[in-house]
C-alpha cells in the first residue's frame, strides 16, 4: 500500500534535500528535491526496484536544477544570514568548491551523514568522497585562514 512510498520519502527526503541544497542552494535545491520526489512517485514501480534509488533521484534533481535559470548560490541573492548565524567567509568559500566537494563536506561535517551515504547519493566510491572531503577542507581552511591542527 501507500506506506512504502511514505517511508521512502521519510527516509530518502532528508538526504536528497541535504545534497541538492548543498549543491544548488536553498531555493533551487529544495525545488529540485521536491521534483525528484514527485518523479519518484510518478515512477514508483521502477524506483523501488532500483539498487540505488537515492542516487538516481539525485540525478533527477540535478536535471531539474538545470531548468532553473536563476543564478546559483547557496542562498538567494540578498538573502544572507546574520553574521552570528554563519561565519561570513564560509559561504563564499563553499561557493568556490565544486558541487561534489560542497555536497560532501556539508553532508558529512555539517549534517552528520556518513561517507557511505554521501557516496550513494553521488554514485561515486567511498574513496572518492574522502578525496572530495579532504580537498574541500583544505580549501575551506585556507579561505577561513584556519591553521591545520591534525
Amino acid at each position, binding site marked *: 500500500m501507500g506506506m512504502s512510498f511514505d517511508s521512502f520519502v521519510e527516509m530518502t527526503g532528508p*538526504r536528497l534535500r541535504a545534497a541538492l*541544497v548543498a549543491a544548488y542552494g536553498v531555493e533551487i535545491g529544495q525545488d529540485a528535491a521536491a521534483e525528484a520526489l514527485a518523479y519518484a512517485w510518478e515512477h514508483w514501480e521502477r524506483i523501488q526496484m532500483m539498487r540505488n534509488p537515492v542516487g538516481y533521484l539525485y540525478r533527477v534533481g540535478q536535471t531539474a536544477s538545470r531548468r532553473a535559470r536563476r543564478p546559483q548560490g547557496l542562498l538567494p541573492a540578498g538573502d544572507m*544570514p546574520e553574521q552570528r548565524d*554563519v561565519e561570513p567567509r564560509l559561504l563564499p568559500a563553499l561557493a568556490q568548491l565544486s558541487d561534489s566537494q560542497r555536497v560532501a563536506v556539508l553532508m558529512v561535517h555539517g549534517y552528520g551523514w556518513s561517507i557511505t551515504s554521501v557516496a550513494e547519493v553521488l554514485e561515486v566510491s567511498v574513496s572518492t568522497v574522502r578525496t572530495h572531503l579532504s580537498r574541500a577542507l583544505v580549501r575551506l581552511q585556507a579561505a577561513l585562514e584556519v591553521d591545520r591542527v591534525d
Partner: protein
Amino acid sequence: MSTDVVYELRECANWLERRVGLPMRPPTGEPDNDGSKVGDNSGTPRRGRHIVVVACCVAVVAVMVMVSRRPAEHRISPAIVDTSVDNGGVRVSDSVDDDRDPMEVAESTLSPTLDGSAFDRTDPARVDELIGRWSDSVNTFTFALDGTLTFTLDQSCDGTYALSARGDIDVLFGDCDDASVSLTAPIFRGATVYRVGDSLYLDGDAGVFRLDLKGEGES
C-alpha cells in the same frame, strides 16, 4: 583537520536547515557517520554499534519494500484541472486512465529527465479538485499555507512545469497550457503525501482555497 572549520560547517548546516524548514539530517537524529576516518572524528559514534543499527535499518527497509509494493490503483492520479471557471476557482474536468504494464512504462522512461516526455501517465484515473479564486495578479495564481507555503502558477506556461513551494515541500506536477493544468503527481507536504480523500486548505491572498483529492468516479 581544524575543528573550527567543522564547527562552522555545523553552524552553517543548522542555519540552512532552519532556512529550508525541513529535515536534512539522518533520520535517527544522531550522526550518521560510519566511522570512516576523515580528519576530525569527534562526535563519531562507536563503529560497531553503528554497523548494527545500519544493518537493522537496511533489513527493515528491504522487508518493507518486498512486502508492501503498492498496487497502482491506490495512487493519486493525473487529473485535468479546468482553470477557466470564472472567480470560482479551479475544478477538475477530466482525468486520464492508463493501465499499461509498469515494466513497459519503465522501458519507455529510462531517462531521468524531467521534460514532458518523461511524464508517462501510468496511474489509473483519479479526479482531483481544486477550489479557490484567482488573485488579481495577471496570469498568476498565488496562495500561501500557514504563512510559509507559497507557490505560483504561471498560467501562460507551455509544457511541463512544476508548482513548487517554499518552506514546506509541496509540489504539483504536470503539464499546462493557457487553459488547463494537468496534475500528474501527488502533493507533498514535508514527509506527508496527501492522498485520495484528503483535503488541503490553502489560505491565499485572494481567499481560502481548498484542494480536494478525490478518487476515481467520485463527483
